[in-house]
């Protein structure tokens, strides 16, 4: 095994184990030895997190393991990114997604889990957090130019904000630039249709399938 292969293997394992210290150590080593950082991302970091996301879908891993792996991956990314930029290259994701819990709702966990699972499916996810007003979603669409916007709502009242947010995106003339998906306990497929969303997922598992379907990826 070459030094590169050896490092990639260890890097992937560290991601799978959710070990940020180890990931950080190896990522720094990758930079130090001058190995292609983009390759390290694609062949080690992403592979590791995809493996765990896949395992969770199959019922072979715990969600806490996936979250730890995604966090470990991000630690590696933050180290390797600079080096990639320096070399004038960029990371290729399957797509870019902006996600947030809508205004008036401070439920975090469902949204965060979906964000992590999407990351663990190969997407770049920008998490706007909770209690996100419609205009912040609009700004984010302008700023990040995502392929998809995801909105979570856990309350029957805040659910109405999903409609408002879609209206706001429409009014800003950005509706045809993004696909919009929604989720959260009180939401239904009918509700998604009614407010003109492009997709709905009742749970985290379906959210993974939904996003793959939207991007035409086999899942």
């Amino acid at each position, binding site marked *: 095994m070459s030094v590169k292969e050896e490092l990639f293997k260890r890097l992937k394992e560290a991601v799978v184990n959710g070990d940020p210290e180890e990931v950080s150590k190896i990522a720094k080593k990758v930079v130090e030895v001058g190995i292609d950082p983009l390759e390290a991302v694609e062949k080690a970091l992403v592979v590791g997190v995809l493996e765990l996301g896949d395992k969770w879908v199959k019922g072979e891993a715990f*969600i806490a393991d996936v979250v730890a792996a995604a966090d470990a991956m991000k630690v590696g990314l933050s180290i390797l990114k600079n080096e990639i930029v320096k070399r004038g290259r960029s990371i290729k994701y399957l797509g870019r997604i902006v996600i947030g819990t809508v205004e008036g709702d401070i439920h975090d966990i469902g949204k965060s889990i979906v964000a992590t699972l999407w990351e663990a499916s190969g997407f770049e996810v920008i998490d706007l957090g909770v209690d996100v007003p419609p205009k912040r979603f609009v700004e984010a669409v302008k700023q990040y130019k995502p392929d998809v916007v995801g909105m979570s709502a856990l309350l029957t009242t805040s659910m109405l904000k999903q409609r408002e947010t879609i209206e706001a995106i429409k009014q800003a003339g950005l509706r045809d630039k993004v696909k919009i998906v929604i989720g959260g306990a*009180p939401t239904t497929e009918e509700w998604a249709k009614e407010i003109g969303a492009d997709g709905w997922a009742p749970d985290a598992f379906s959210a993974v399938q939904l996003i793959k379907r939207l991007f035409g990826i086999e899942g």
Partner: protein
Amino acid sequence: MARPRIEVLSRDEVEEIHLRSLNILNRVGVRIEHEEVLNMLRDIGAEVDLNKKIVRIPEHIVREALKRTPPIVRLYHRDGKNYVELYGWSTYFVVGSAAYYYIDWRTGEIRRPMTRDLADVAKLADALPNTHIMSTALVPADIPEIVADRWRMYVVLKRCSKPIDTGAFTIEGVPDAAKLMKAVVGEENVSRKPFMIFAICSSPPLKWSSLTVQNLMDCAKYGIPVHIIPMPQTGGTAPATLAGAVLQANAEFLSGVVIAQFTKPGTPIVYSGSPTVFDQRFATSCTGYIEVGLMSAAFSHLAKFYGVPSASYTMVSDAKTFDQQATLEPAFGALISVLSGINMAIGSGMMLEENGISLLKLVIDDDIAGSALRFAKGIQIDVETLADWLIEEVGPGGLFLKYRHTREWWRKEHFIPKLLDKKTTDTWKKSGSKTLDTVAREFIEKVLKEHSVEPLPPDIEKSLDNAMLEILKKHKVEKVPEI
């Protein structure tokens, strides 16, 4: 008579959880998304970071708040005469609240509920002897969301005479509820004879949403009872360890007590909880895990330590259809509730991660509740029940059937379930070999057809209708479904 009891914590452990909770409130604090409350807490000596909306609450404030909390909470029936008293080791069973789905008892279909479904739940709960507190069980889909919280109260009030566990999804929710209550029992009795109790849920970890806090303050101002519901998910929004989850929940409960008692001293508060196990395999919040029982029993113990009534969501099943799981999970829950002295055992009829109500489950939960309540009474020991004179009289080889003692006591000693089968195999076969769900379905049909709910007096009904009409007008809701 030794009353059957379980205690999952020792006195020292309760004390330790209490002291560590005080420490968390003092060192970490809670995040409260409500400026008025932040200012109020700063004024009474808490350390407030207005930017981060974090309040660190010193110990003496918590102790003072606890002193202001009444030990007994009474929930009246809407007639203002009957009531349940939440205190000591008595357990009352409560229908699960605010489900977004209805599991149709005729077809088994999971669908959005309509107003008439909520009316059915109310009528059935009115008739069930071991289901003591009704709730605004469903969120009907045939009324605009913006008034759905108050519409539910109105529908239930019309179709059920029992106390109501409810909650608000809107800022106007509590003040409008007070208007509905006033229409029924008169202004002076909104706080003296409250027939509604409001669910107030913190957002774990250690966080309060602006809407919840507003609802809590409004309830305090009107003197309407609340149950404060920390909802730790083990390994999700709380530590994976049961002790850690209970500790965090306890700190959240105490912070709620502070908000309420410094808004208005004497606010009636129930120490409630909806602990769940966050299943790492499916990312689901599960209510039927046996650990939920352990955490609920711990909450009850802490509530008794503080001298306030207790509640917990112990009756909810994770089953997706009415099967064995839907009955065995609440059976554990009911028994744990009565044995640990939980005053409100919440969740009768509820399934699907607290998202669905099933009438089939509701009627069987009533038998489960009856069984558990009987168990909690224990074995009565005295001259009459020991009956040694009778044993002597009957003698070896005799029969007890013909004795007056038998006729008198058999009925008294046993809880006779309505639905569980006790017939001979042959009789069971001859009467159609019915499984429990069929028996339950027939029972529901019969009750819905035959039971009549004590109607509200005409003048009160009229003033209630007017109060609801005003609320609907305010929100420009013109068309309402039939009840």
